[in-house]
């Protein structure tokens, strides 16, 4: 057996190979433990000393050539994909990479941060407020009379042993706090937890998150509200969405508008997510009610403003296609790792 005839045979063999299995057989024939190359190197001790070196080099060159042919064929067989096993450093690059696991930020935090970032780009400042509030800040100051049906929309947890203290049922009391403690012009967004006594199901939770925002200045108009909210909605849901402002009632704004976006699932054709309406309600908004200004000592003749609020869970559910609000509070790692 001489190396030249082996080389000739090699070329013939490799050309005939048409499958990975045949390639593996080829590899075993030449490079296996009892293969041709092993046989050749087994001969080395039997050779005269002066020939051993040269023979060894040729055997090695042959081995290198065979490896190249195999790699080449493998690439050809796997459609040009490089399935080379050894990298430059000799590591198997197909094994898992080595790195510290990253943690995941809760999707609600991500949505809050994204929304706050949009508003801070527009010039708003972020302010937070306490979760325990007074009846005044949560209701009276916001022009919600205590014994009035308009309060039905704001069912509230009250505290035992502390009269007239409650868990805020919306982030709007921070409006009262901020307007009392600062002077206009104001442009503020307020993210935070809010609470309402609701039985928990796929779309209700007794704790959820809201983002509130408001502007107060000498010349704020309803058209500004429309412009700011459209800028916001397009930043969150994309430039293609359509928007509509629908008259509504909130005690703390006048005029009040609910803001709908065209359904991001069905593009307005009507589906189960939008209740066949083609529209999704995403925001409540309006021009700040003069009575609210009066309660905080801002002159409603001099200043106007608008305010808006939205449910973070709702935005997150729409954005990510999440169908059950409880998932946010279960903290299943298989859920959290998706964000």
């Amino acid at each position, binding site marked *: 057996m001489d190396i030249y005839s082996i080389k000739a045979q090699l070329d013939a063999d490799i050309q005939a190979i048409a499958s990975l299995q045949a390639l593996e057989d080829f590899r075993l024939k030449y490079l296996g433990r009892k293969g041709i190359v092993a046989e050749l190197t087994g001969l080395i001790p039997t050779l005269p000393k002066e020939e051993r070196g040269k023979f060894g080099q040729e055997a090695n060159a042959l081995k290198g050539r065979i490896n190249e042919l195999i790699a080449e064929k493998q690439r050809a067989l796997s459609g040009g994909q490089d399935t080379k096993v050894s990298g430059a450093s000799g590591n198997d690059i197909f094994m898992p990479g080595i790195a510290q696991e990253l*943690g995941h930020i809760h999707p609600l935090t991500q949505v809050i941060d994204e929304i706050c970032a949009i508003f801070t780009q527009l010039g708003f400042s972020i302010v937070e407020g306490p*979760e325990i509030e007074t009846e005044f800040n949560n209701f009276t100051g916001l022009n919600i009379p205590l014994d009035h049906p308009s309060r039905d929309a704001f069912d509230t947890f009250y505290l035992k042993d502390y009269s007239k203290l409650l868990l805020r049922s919306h982030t709007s009391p921070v409006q009262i706090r901020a307007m009392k403690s600062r002077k206009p012009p104001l442009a503020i967004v307020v993210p935070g937890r809010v609470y309402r006594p609701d039985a928990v199901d796929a779309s209700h939770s007794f704790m959820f998150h809201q983002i509130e925002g408001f502007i107060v200045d000498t010349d704020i108009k309803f058209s500004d509200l429309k412009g700011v909210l459209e800028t916001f909605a397009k930043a969150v849901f994309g430039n293609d969405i359509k928007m509509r402002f629908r*008259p509504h009632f909130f005690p703390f704004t006048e005029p009040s508008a609910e803001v709908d976006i065209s359904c991001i699932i069905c593009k307005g054709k009507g589906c189960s997510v939008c209740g066949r309406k083609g529209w999704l309600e995403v925001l409540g908004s309006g021009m700040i009610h003069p009575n609210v200004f009066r309660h905080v000592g801002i002159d409603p003749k001099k200043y106007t403003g608008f305010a808006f609020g939205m449910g973070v869970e709702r935005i997150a559910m729409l954005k990510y296609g999440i169908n059950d609000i409880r998932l946010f509070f279960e903290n299943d790692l298989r859920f959290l790792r998706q964000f």
Partner: protein
Amino acid sequence: MKFTYNWLKDFVDIKIAPEALAEKLTMAGLEVSGVEGKGGDFVFEAEITSNRPDWLSVIGIAREVAAITGVKLKSAKSSKCRCAKAVGKFAIKVEDKSDCPLYSAKIIREVKVGPSPKWLKERLELIGCRSINNVVDITNYCLFTWGEPLHAFDLDKLSGAEIIVRRAKNSEKLVTIDQVERKLDADILIIADPVKPVAVAGVMGGKDTEVTEHTKNILLEAAVFNGSVVRRGRQKLGLSTDSSYRFERGVDFETAEFSACQASGLIEELSSGKCVLAKSSGKALPKTKSISLDLGLVEKILNVKIAEQKLKNILGHLGFRVRSVGKNKMMVTVPLFREDVELPEDLIEEISRIYGFENIPQTLPSIKPQVSIRGSRDLVALTKKVLTGLGLSEAITYSLVDQDLSKGFGLQDAQPVAIMNPLSKEQEVLRTTLIPSLARCVSYNLNQKQEFVFLYEIANVFSRGENFPEEELTLGIVICGEKSFFLEQGLAKENASLLEIKGVLERLFLKLGIKEYDFNPSGSGVIEVTVGGQKAGSLINLEKSALARVDIKNKDLFCAEVSLEKVFAAADLNKKFVSPPRYPGITRDISLVLKEDLAIKSVLSRLYEKGTPLLIEVRIADYYKGKQISAGLRSLTISCIYRSDERTLTEAEVNPVHSEVVRMLTESFGAKIR
């Protein structure tokens, strides 16, 4: 609120299809949630906001249709009552006129109670109201048409010729039409005869006095009850009706009187009764309000110029009376059924919604940014970044918890702030610690076959304060299970430990620029964390009994809880550059065996003391505890790095210092050098 297309057409000419009408109503603020073709008519369902009780009637919605489509309302039938305003045999006594500003009663004799005619039956059934008999149906028909809840009593079942409107006495009871015995009290306003209660005012009538097929003579009630009083009453009784719903939102005098006449007229017509006595008691008819509207304000708020005539038409169609007063000013008289309209801004809302929000332009305000407003939010964000980078995931759990759960963890020394009106046990108290909630998340994830759970939450915890409860922003961390990670040699596994949580906090403190912090044992399984010399929280190896409460078995759960308010108070994000060392250092390793109960911390600080100023860093390079050495001892390798900022140190300089350091270790700590 349900109504039908044909019913509306009684009051207004509609030239658009039902679906188009629904869309227009929605875009004017009267949200139609459904339209359904039924029995040759179309049934609309609308969600009525609480400020618009007038929309709880077909006439109110017809008025809206008129405004949207720019037509006039058809005039209603004569409101003249045929009843004589008789005096005499019947008395009405209202104990408190603020509870009941108006009470009117009509006595109609010789009625023939029987089934309603087909048209009436059908109309009521289309909107889901069951037909009872002609008299009851007429009261319901008028309720839905005009918005005034009426009630008919069987006159002969009332004792004595007097109606008394008063608060109930605490021991009184009444069986209502739904056959439930109601316990009454002084918060509840009732209608009574001289002997007994006969109705819960504005909510529901009594069973004993209801109109049946045997009824001959009726008393027809039309009243205005105080909304707040009705509201409290129905909340106490847990009984909401079409009637209470309307009274709570407000019914006006004119509507009450008008619909009573409409009803008595219909009763005479359909049951051949005869109205013989009408009587009413109450305050005088309230005055109508007038609002001065500056057209400049309309433009200022809406940023659109609307022609004066257009404004007049919009308001006129909605039932307002408008007259121009000089240039750019209008005096607007508000009809009684629009009690919600009080300010010029309310009128601007009316104008804008009929004019169409879509016709108002979009602009962007110029905002003066106030970059100086910054709270702890930036630090919270930084904290979350650090923790995420270290492999922890963020959890968000409920701030309300069940009291027993927190107690069972033994972490709560004070009484928590409790909720007065929880819906379930899970909402009893505001939590004083994040740990039980996080432990529950761990349990949940272990049940989902997750092998390693590493979570944190940043949220407020609550404690009792003197006048106001206190909220403290807190960081909770939990770690549990076995972490597996790849090394070049293969998969490595490591059990969660308290040191890992300590490591997380150390990295966090480093990032926050906190230099002074400490971890010290305090009691069993608890390590106290101090920041800036102040107690800021603790590391805890949770006890088995606590873990059993969240169904975690055969696993250790380590956790930490620190007050971020205290941590952030010590934070210092100002950075000052220090030049990297210019001269190389000399490293000397010491391998030694130490008693296990010696605190490494104190050994290291003594090393620094001894080696100063050349010894600039001491590191634990390796440690071992186990079979190879005797119990109670541990083996350590300590790296000492000597360096100077002025010159390259020589062996001759370092050697004597290092020998001193080693000697100190053997002499002061009994270390055996290996």
